[in-house]
């Protein structure tokens, strides 16, 4: 694999100009996690649609390597407007194909950190809703 392959233009672009970066003041929920291997950190804030079924807006913040930050940027760009039920079921392969270059096992963990944060955030939010209505 040539050097340029791992850090292709679109990956560097997402790292240098991250989409949906920052925090949301009116988020319905937010969640954050670290990768214990390297300490990379991602927080995602999510604003839901009126009927609370879809992602209306989302933003991420944190610190980490190019792969973790670019993958989260690509992920949020791609799931805007999606049903949260679908995001919860999202195949990790979706993120890996957005990255589009082969990753070693440890770097896969970097790439999937954002997805893990988003899915766990949704799950915890749903749990909270169930407890409220119970």
């Amino acid at each position, binding site marked *: *694999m*040539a*050097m*340029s392959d*791992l*850090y292709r233009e679109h990956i*560097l672009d997402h790292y240098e100009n991250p989409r949906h970066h920052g925090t949301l003041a009116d988020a319905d929920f937010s969640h954050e996690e670290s990768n214990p*291997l*390297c*300490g*990379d*950190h991602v927080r995602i804030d999510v604003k839901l649609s009126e009927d609370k079924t879809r992602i209306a807006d989302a933003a991420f913040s944190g*610190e*980490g*390597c*190019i*792969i*973790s930050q670019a993958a989260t940027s690509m992920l949020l760009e791609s799931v805007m407007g999606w049903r949260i039920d679908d995001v919860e079921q999202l195949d990790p392969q979706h993120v890996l194909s957005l990255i589009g270059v082969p990753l*070693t096992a440890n*770097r896969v963990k*970097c790439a999937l950190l954002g997805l893990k944060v988003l899915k766990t955030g949704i799950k915890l939010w749903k749990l909270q809703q169930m407890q409220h209505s119970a």
Partner: protein
Amino acid sequence: MHTQREFFDVHAVRRDFPILQQRVNGKPLVFLDSAASSQKPLPVLEAMERVYREAYANVHRGVYALSEAATAAYDEARAKIARFIGAPAVENIVFTRNATEALNLLAYAYARAFLREGDEILLTELEHHANFVPWMVLARERNVTLKFIPLTPEGLLDLDAFERLLTERTRIVTFAHVSNVLGTITDPAPIIARAHAAGAIVIVDGSQSVPHMPVNVQAMDCDFLVFSGHKMLGPTGIGVLYGKRALLEAMPPFLTGGDMISYVGFDDVRWNDVPLKFEAGTPAFVEAIGLGAAVDYLSALGMDAVRAHEAQLTAYALERLSEVSGVRIYGPQDPQRRGGVIAFTVNRIHPHDLASLLDQHGIAIRAGHHCAQPLHQRLGVNATARASFYIYTEPSEIDALAEGIEHAKRALRIS
């Protein structure tokens, strides 16, 4: 006995390490992660294979020839290791899985038996998680207080602060002889003498010193020393706890079961003598024999020569890396005060990305917090890159690292 030369032939050493001959991503492998785990020379691989092929049976259990042969080889390995660290006798050497297990053994068997609420344990800000978390768990469980010796800006232990933190309540003082991040070498003897005068015992984490320099437990007078075989040319799954005999005898066992008993009845059990009291179950004796062969290999080179080789490489690396713009090196600048470990960051490149980019050039370094997150909090960074050296490392590999960093900067459009 062994002839101690000042230096050894690195090319001859490299021929003993088949793994170093390979290419990674089309480039010759440049392995700069020996602080995490070292590579293994042929004599170690052959010693272990010989046991499995010719003399394998469970130790301490059979009266037949094979078991006797395996037991004798296991005992001989223990004797080699005792000699290697200057221990008075084989009874001082307890085999564990690794340094981590040895430290847990001390936290469970020693500290839980002898520490009381309000007692204090003094550790340092640069400890590996292995010498941190077991004490944290103990502190929560037993209301024991942990105190931390801070670092000077240069990355040395602040010995004035140590004097202030040492009190009559201090029961254990523990520190890494060599830091796995900053490389800091701490002179153990003065600290140990002060701790003993205050009535504390001392545990030295020798994980990064025993593989790389002469270590003599009687000269430093530590109460316990721990280290892992896999960082010193030996296999995984074998580590060592050295302890003073009276302390080992006073301690209750850690794990219990077979081998560690002298008598078991329906309502009575008596422990075996040290060191077997601490070795429950079938031990990793093939690995211990492999570690014995590793110790032979290192002794033949001479630990003074090993240290001289690494000090020279470290001096060269400090110089070479500081010429690369954007590189920041952590830890003491004086190569005589540090082991062959260099943690660094490159401006605007995350260590992970650097490690991936270097990997594409066949260069293996570590990136992350190196199991020392509290230290990284002190340094004010989430992660660092780390290059570490051993007997098979050559100056040309440090050149490759420096050039690799320049490549990485270009790939990420950083000038």
